[in-house]
């Protein structure tokens, strides 16, 4: 064989590879060229990070952060776009699929309907929300469509039935604009690009872009263009591996000092306003100015109960997002909760003390190396040495779980009650006076604040005082769950509606029938989400100890109209007082139920009359 032929043959494969890379399919270039995406401000996108960080890329892809915002591809859309009408605020919405497109037939002006095409999908764990693009002059806006798909419940729900707010009959009451709200936290490197923030005519016209749809690497590690450029040189990488030199290092939240570390999560998990406020213009054009590693407080002011609402008809709107003692009661306020906690104020706790973004179960993203009480006892070692001496509960019970008492589920968000991130100790008197649900009675659902106060005083000492009155003015000796379920404000009602059915809830045999009856009454609440949680709890109680209510429960829809809801509640109460009572223990006294399993409705109504008239509207 001639030498030239040999040389040509040996160069053939390398040349082929180079040509294929130059002209073949390039997923990174393809992604970067999408009209949604920008590569400004040093952002490069997660696909670029993958080359070096294979394992972190893979663990991130498994999280709900990665799929928070997506384009409506068939493999992405979880909703059943099957053409079946979904009742919605007195009308109907029809989700349907046509030629690979996802559409909703929605009510329009003058009693007509129109087709809206899904352009964007937001949400990944509990529910998916759908947005349509509305063209406005030379810009556009992405507007939320009126129904969402609840992934866990596998059903469509009107938006106003999943938020903590009273019944409404306006189909477009939640037609939020993605470009000036959702974009900021559910994407990486957001740029809302409002047409002209000073011109009110163009106030709703955008040309929005993001560095990446969803919450990706650069949300927490900072823009990576320089980091990637330096590390393309293998010598630079090995110098860093061997500890010789580090240039253009990415931000590692676990290596930041405490204040900066919690700011990384707090940029989204801490509802905030721009600081100073006039930065709102920059937010609506080039996006938030905070970058990981910065001090969050230099860019934003976290919202607290005392934050005034400018230009809003309800100046206390922010205050309603907190229990009256300032504890957040809504998700996305975890940063505020942490900053109120002794573990942060007097300890070294950061978000990554308990959570890991690259390991463990994506649900909750708890560190897999320290499960259960170990998250707390990594610092509180002396408690671990004598757990029951501290908890006064059996070691295997929920009462010996640190978080049940110190991080109770009193925070509402996305159709669920979450743990409070204000880590503190239960105090029956403080909670009774502030209206904040009390950790003891979230498990001991047949017990009163009075009982809780006495127990705290007996078991943990004189620093605890027995409460004398409740904020909602319900009798202090009534079981907290029952009093809060009827007399509390909507957030308290939601908390206890969920708590009664939880597996950790414990109660005497004689409380089984009364708790079912009170939950049945809560299924007629004026807030759809309270009804949803009450129905879920009732179903859960029935699962553990059937009383025959299940067939009736299965036929009730918390989104149905007031008339049918009233019939459903009456049906449930009648059943309990007839068939049900034969299968249940005799009701204990003090639970507002007679011995014949009939509720003392007069007293229940007196409790409901104590409900706060504050209309809570929590759109999370």
């Amino acid at each position, binding site marked *: 064989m001639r030498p030239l032929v040999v040389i040509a043959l040996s160069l053939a494969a390398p040349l082929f590879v180079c040509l294929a890379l130059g002209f073949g399919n390039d997923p990174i270039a393809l992604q970067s060229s999408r009209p949604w995406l920008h590569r400004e401000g040093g952002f490069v996108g997660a696909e670029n990070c993958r080359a070096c960080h*294979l*394992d972190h890329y893979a663990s991130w892809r498994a999280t709900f952060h990665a799929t928070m915002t997506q384009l409506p591809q068939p493999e992405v859309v979880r909703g059943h776009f099957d053409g079946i009408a979904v009742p919605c605020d007195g009308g109907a919405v029809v989700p349907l699929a046509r030629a690979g497109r996802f559409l909703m037939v929605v009510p329009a002006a003058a009693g007509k309907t129109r087709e809206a095409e899904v352009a964007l999908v937001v949400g990944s764990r509990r529910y998916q929300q759908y947005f349509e693009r509305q063209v406005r002059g030379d810009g556009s806006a992405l507007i939320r469509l009126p129904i969402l798909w609840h992934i866990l419940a596998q059903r469509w729900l009107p938006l106003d039935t999943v938020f903590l707010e009273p019944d409404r009959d306006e189909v477009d009451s939640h037609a939020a604009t993605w470009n000036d709200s959702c974009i900021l936290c559910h994407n990486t490197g957001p740029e809302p690009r409002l047409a002209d923030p000073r011109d009110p005519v163009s106030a709703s016209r955008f040309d929005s872009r993001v560095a990446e749809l969803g919450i990706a690497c650069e949300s927490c590690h900072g823009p990576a263009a320089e980091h990637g450029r330096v590390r393309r040189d*293998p010598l630079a990488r090995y110098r860093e591996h061997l500890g010789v030199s580090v240039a253009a290092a990415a931000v590692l939240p676990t290596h930041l000092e405490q204040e900066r570390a919690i700011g990384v999560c707090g940029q989204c998990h801490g509802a905030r306003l721009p600081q100073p406020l006039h930065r709102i213009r920059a937010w609506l054009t080039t996006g938030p100015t905070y970058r990981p590693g910065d001090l969050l407080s230099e860019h934003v002011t976290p919202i607290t109960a005392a934050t005034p609402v400018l230009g809003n008809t309800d100046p206390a709107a922010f205050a309603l997002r907190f229990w009256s003692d300032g504890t957040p009661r809504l998700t996305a306020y975890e940063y505020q909760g942490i900053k109120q906690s002794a573990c942060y104020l007097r300890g070294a706790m950061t978000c990554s003390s308990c959570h890991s973004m690259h390991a463990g179960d994506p649900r909750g993203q708890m560190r897999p190396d320290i499960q259960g009480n170990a998250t707390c006892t990594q610092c509180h070692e002396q408690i671990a040495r004598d757990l029951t001496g501290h908890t006064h509960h059996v070691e295997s019970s929920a009462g010996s779980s640190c978080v049940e008492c110190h991080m109770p589920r009193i925070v509402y968000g996305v159709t669920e009650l979450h743990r409070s991130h204000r880590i503190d100790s239960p105090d029956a008197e403080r909670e009774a006076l502030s209206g904040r649900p009390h950790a003891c009675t979230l498990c001991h659902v047949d017990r009163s604040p009075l009982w809780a106060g006495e127990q705290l005083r007996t078991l943990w000492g004189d620093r605890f005082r027995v409460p004398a009155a409740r904020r909602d003015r319900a009798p202090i000796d009534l079981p907290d769950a029952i009093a809060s379920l009827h007399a509390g404000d909507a957030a308290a009602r939601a908390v206890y509606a969920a708590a009664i059915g939880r597996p950790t809830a414990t109660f005497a045999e004689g409380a089984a029938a009364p708790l079912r009856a009170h939950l049945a009454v809560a299924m007629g609440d004026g807030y759809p989400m309270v009804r949803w949680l009450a129905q879920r709890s009732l179903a859960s109680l029935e699962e553990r100890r059937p009383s025959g209510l299940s067939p009736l429960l299965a036929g009730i829809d918390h989104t149905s109209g007031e008339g049918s809801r009233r019939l459903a509640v009456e049906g449930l109460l009648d059943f309990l007082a007839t068939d049900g009572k034969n299968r249940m223990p005799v009701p204990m006294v003090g639970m507002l139920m007679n011995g014949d399993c009939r509720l003392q409705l007069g007293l229940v109504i007196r409790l409901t009359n104590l409900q706060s008239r504050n209309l809570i509207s929590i759109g999370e």
Partner: protein
Amino acid sequence: MNDPAAQRALNTGWLLLAVYLPLGLTLEALHALKVQVYFGSELRRELWTLAHAHGTLLGILCLVFASLGDRAVADTSRRARVSSLLRSGAILMPLGFLFGGILNYEGDPSLAILLVPFGGVLLATALLLAARSAPRN
């Protein structure tokens, strides 16, 4: 076998197969049993797969050279040199992949990976020498 170069290539070939065929079986077992620590590093998996593939194929190449080397490279001293280069390269290259996957970084192998290009150069030189010594019809 009287040719010492062929004998050494034969020994090396069997040695490589003895090491890297069981490695392949081990990797398959780790896959089958879904051993988490093995799946913990994607780069390590790739490097060890490459070690198995290169070790096995280069072992077979050594066996082929042992049986056909005298026909490919007629000159005894040159054959001895080709054999030496081939054996060294065949040992170093898979070893570089294997050790590169031990104490490796997330995106980069450990420094043992330097054995791979070194082994590659030895193999390329052996190939070149053998090609130049091939009898021309």
